[in-house]
C-alpha cells in the first residue's frame, strides 16, 4: 500500500502540473457558464447586451414611441428621438448608441421599419422592438377598420395549455418549452462533461501505460513495485486529478448558483441542482474507473500510441453512441432502447445520468445500473491487472487477440 501511495502521488503531480490540465480546470466553469447560463442571462435581461447605451429612434408616432420607451426602459435601455438619420447611424458606429430604429414615412402600411446596428445580432432587442411595432400596427389597423378592439382581443386570445412534470411523491412541476430547453441544455452540458472527462482521462491512462513501455521505464518500476500497484497507482493518481477538477467545477457551479446568480438577478437552469451534481460526480467516478481500467489494459497490450489509438476505437464507440442519441435520450428517456443503454455499463454513465436529469427512472433501474457498473468496474479491473502484468513487459510485436486472452488465464 505504501508504494502505491508514491505511484499515485507521482501520477497525480504529473497530471495536475500539466498546463492543459490547469487551463481546462479553470476554463471549464466559464465554458459551462457560457453554454448554460449565458442564454438565459441574455433572454432575461437583453439590456445586458446594450450595457446602458440608448436606442436612437426616428419617425415613430407618439403612441408607438411611448410603447417602445416603456418596453425598453424595462430592459434598462433609454430611447432617444433623433431627426438626423446619418448622425444617428454614426452614433451607432462609434458605439455611443446600441442601435438606430427608423420608421419611414407611411409606416406601417407603405413605409418600412428598419433596425440599424453594428452587428445585427441583438436578437433579443430587435425582436422586442418588432413585437411592439407589430402590436401597435395591428391595433392601429383594427381601429381603422372599425372593429371593436375588445372583440378582436377575445377572438385572438390563445386557449390555455400547460405542461406538468409528475414526480414521485406527488410533486407537480409546471414545464413550458423554456424549461425543456433548460433541461436539454443541462443534459447536454452534463453529458458532454462526462464524455470529455472519461475519454480524456482514459486516453491519458492509456498513453501513460504505453509511455511506460516505450520509454522502457517499466522494468525499473517493476523492480520496486508490483505491477498492479503500478497500474492502480496510475488510475488512482489520474482519478484524483479528475476529482480535483470536478471539485473545482462543482464548487464553481454552487458559487454561481448561490452568489453570482442572485447578484445578477438570474437563476441557473433548474437542472443544476445539488442532487444532479452528486449524480454527475457519481457517474463520472464509475465511468472513469471502467474506462480507465479498460484503457490501462489496452495500453499494456499496444505497441505504441498509434496502435493504442486503433485498439481504443471500439471502446470509444460506446461513449459516442449516447452522444449521437442525445435528442432521443431527452425526448423519450423511458423507451426500451434507452432503458437498456442506461443499464449496460459501458453506456450507462452517460445514459442513466441523462435519464436522471430528464425523468425519474424507477429506483430498481437506478440500483441495477449502479450494481452492474460497480460489478463491471471490478471485473474490468481484475482483467486489466492480468493483461497489464504480462502485456507491460511485451515489446517489439503487436500481440494478437488470442494471445491477450491467454495472458488473462496466466496464473
Amino acid at each position, binding site marked *: 500500500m505504501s508504494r502505491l501511495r508514491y505511484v499515485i502521488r507521482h501520477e497525480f503531480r*504529473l497530471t495536475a502540473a500539466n498546463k492543459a490540465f490547469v487551463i481546462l480546470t479553470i476554463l471549464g466553469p466559464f465554458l459551462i457558464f457560457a453554454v448554460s447560463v449565458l442564454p438565459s442571462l441574455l433572454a432575461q435581461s437583453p439590456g445586458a447586451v446594450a450595457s446602458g447605451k440608448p436606442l436612437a429612434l426616428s419617425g415613430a408616432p407618439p403612441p408607438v414611441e411611448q410603447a417602445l420607451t416603456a418596453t425598453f426602459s424595462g430592459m434598462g435601455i433609454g430611447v432617444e428621438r433623433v431627426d438626423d438619420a446619418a448622425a444617428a447611424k454614426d452614433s451607432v458606429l462609434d458605439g455611443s448608441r446600441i442601435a438606430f430604429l427608423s420608421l419611414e414615412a407611411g409606416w406601417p402600411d407603405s413605409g418600412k421599419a428598419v433596425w440599424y446596428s453594428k452587428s445585427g445580432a441583438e436578437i433579443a432587442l430587435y425582436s422586442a422592438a418588432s413585437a411592439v411595432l407589430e402590436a401597435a400596427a395591428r391595433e392601429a389597423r383594427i381601429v381603422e377598420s372599425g372593429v371593436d378592439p375588445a372583440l378582436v382581443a377575445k377572438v385572438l386570445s390563445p386557449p390555455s395549455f400547460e405542461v406538468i412534470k409528475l414526480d414521485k411523491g406527488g410533486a407537480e412541476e409546471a414545464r413550458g418549452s423554456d424549461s425543456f430547453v433548460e433541461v436539454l441544455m443541462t443534459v447536454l452540458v452534463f453529458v458532454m462533461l462526462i464524455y470529455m472527462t472519461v475519454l480524456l482521462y482514459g486516453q491519458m491512462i492509456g498513453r501513460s501505460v504505453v509511455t511506460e513501455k516505450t520509454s522502457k521505464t517499466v522494468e525499473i518500476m517493476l523492480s520496486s513495485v508490483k505491477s498492479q500497484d503500478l497500474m492502480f497507482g496510475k488510475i488512482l493518481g489520474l482519478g484524483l486529478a479528475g476529482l480535483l477538477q470536478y471539485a473545482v467545477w462543482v464548487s464553481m457551479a454552487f458559487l454561481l448558483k448561490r452568489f453570482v446568480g442572485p447578484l445578477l438577478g438570474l437563476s441557473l437552469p433548474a437542472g443544476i441542482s445539488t442532487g444532479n451534481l452528486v449524480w454527475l460526480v457519481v457517474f463520472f467516478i464509475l465511468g472513469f474507473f471502467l474506462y480507465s481500467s479498460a484503457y490501462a489494459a489496452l495500453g499494456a497490450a499496444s505497441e505504441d500510441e498509434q496502435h493504442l489509438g486503433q485498439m481504443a476505437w471500439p471502446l470509444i464507440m460506446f461513449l459516442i453512441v449516447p452522444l449521437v442519441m442525445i435528442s432521443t435520450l431527452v425526448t423519450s428517456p423511458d423507451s426500451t432502447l434507452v432503458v437498456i443503454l442506461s443499464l449496460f455499463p459501458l453506456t450507462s454513465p452517460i445514459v442513466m445520468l441523462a435519464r436522471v436529469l430528464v425523468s425519474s427512472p424507477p429506483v430498481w433501474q437506478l440500483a441495477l445500473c449502479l450494481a452492474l457498473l460497480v460489478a463491471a468496474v471490478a471485473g474490468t479491473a481484475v482483467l486489466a491487472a492480468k493483461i497489464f502484468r504480462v502485456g507491460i513487459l511485451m515489446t517489439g510485436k503487436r500481440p494478437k487477440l488470442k494471445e491477450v486472452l491467454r495472458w488473462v488465464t496466466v496464473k
Partner: protein
Amino acid sequence: MQAVAGLSFEARPGEIFGLIGPNGAGKSTTIRMIMNIIAPDSGTIRFDGSPLSEADKDRIGYLPEERGLYRKAKLGEVLEYLAAIKGAKPALYRPSIDAWLGRFGLSEWKHRKVQELSKGMAQKAQFIAAVAHNPSVVFFDEPFSGLDPLAQDELLAVMVELKQKGATVLFSTHIMEHAEKICERILLMDKGKEVVYGSMADIKARYGRNAVQLEFDGDASFVAGLDFVESVVSYPRWIEVEMKDDADPDALFRALAGRLRVRRFETVAPSLHKIFVRLVGGEEAQNVQA
C-alpha cells in the same frame, strides 16, 4: 521454449559476482527472475536465506538491460521518485542523488528533462537510479553497453567502490575482460544452462593449463597443428596458445624459432575467454568478446 533451466548459484554478501555468457544465454531472464519481474516456472529465489519478498526489493538496486527513464520528466524528479518507491526517505536519497549527480558530472542536468540527456548521460542517470537509495545489493544488467572506454573504466571503479562500502554487486556481461578485472566469483552460462560456476581463482586453477600469449610477425597458422598444443585462439597480431597438460612451453618456443618473428612470448594463466571457448565450443564463443 525455455530461456533458462536448472540454474543454481549464490552471491555472497559483499562480493562482486559476474553472470557471464554470450548474447541470448539467459542472463537478463535470470536477473529478471531474481528481481521478481517475471516468475520462474519452478524453483526459488532466496534472499538472506529466505524467499525473496517484496520488502527485500527495497534493499536491491537494479539497472535493467533495457534502459529508459520517463523522458518528459525532469531528471531530479525521476530519480527522487524511483528512490521513493524503494521506500527510501527524502533525507537519505536527496543528498545521495546530488552526490551521484556530482560524481558523474550531471549536477547541472538535475532540473532538465530526461529527453535532453545524451545517450551516455542517460546511461549514467540510469545507474544513479539503481544506487541512489543506498541498496545493500545491486544488479547491473550489461552495465557497460553503450559506454565509451573512459566511462567503462569509471563504472568499473564505482562498482569496486560499492563493494568496498559493503554492497553485494551482481552484474551480467558478455565482455569477459570486465568480469575478469573485478569479479571474485562468476557463473558462466550458455543457452540457459550453467557452464561453470565458482570463484575466479578456482576456475582458473581448474581449467588453468599453461597458456602462452604470443605476439609476432608472420603466419602462425602452423601452431595449431603442433602435437603438444591443445588449442589456439587467434587474433590478427597475436595468439593465445593452450598447451596440453604435460607440455612444456619451452617446446613451443623452440618450435617457433626460425618460422616466426616473435615480439613477445609470455606464459599466462588462461583468460576467462579462453576457458569459455574451451567449455562451450568455438561457434558459441563467436558471440563473446575477449
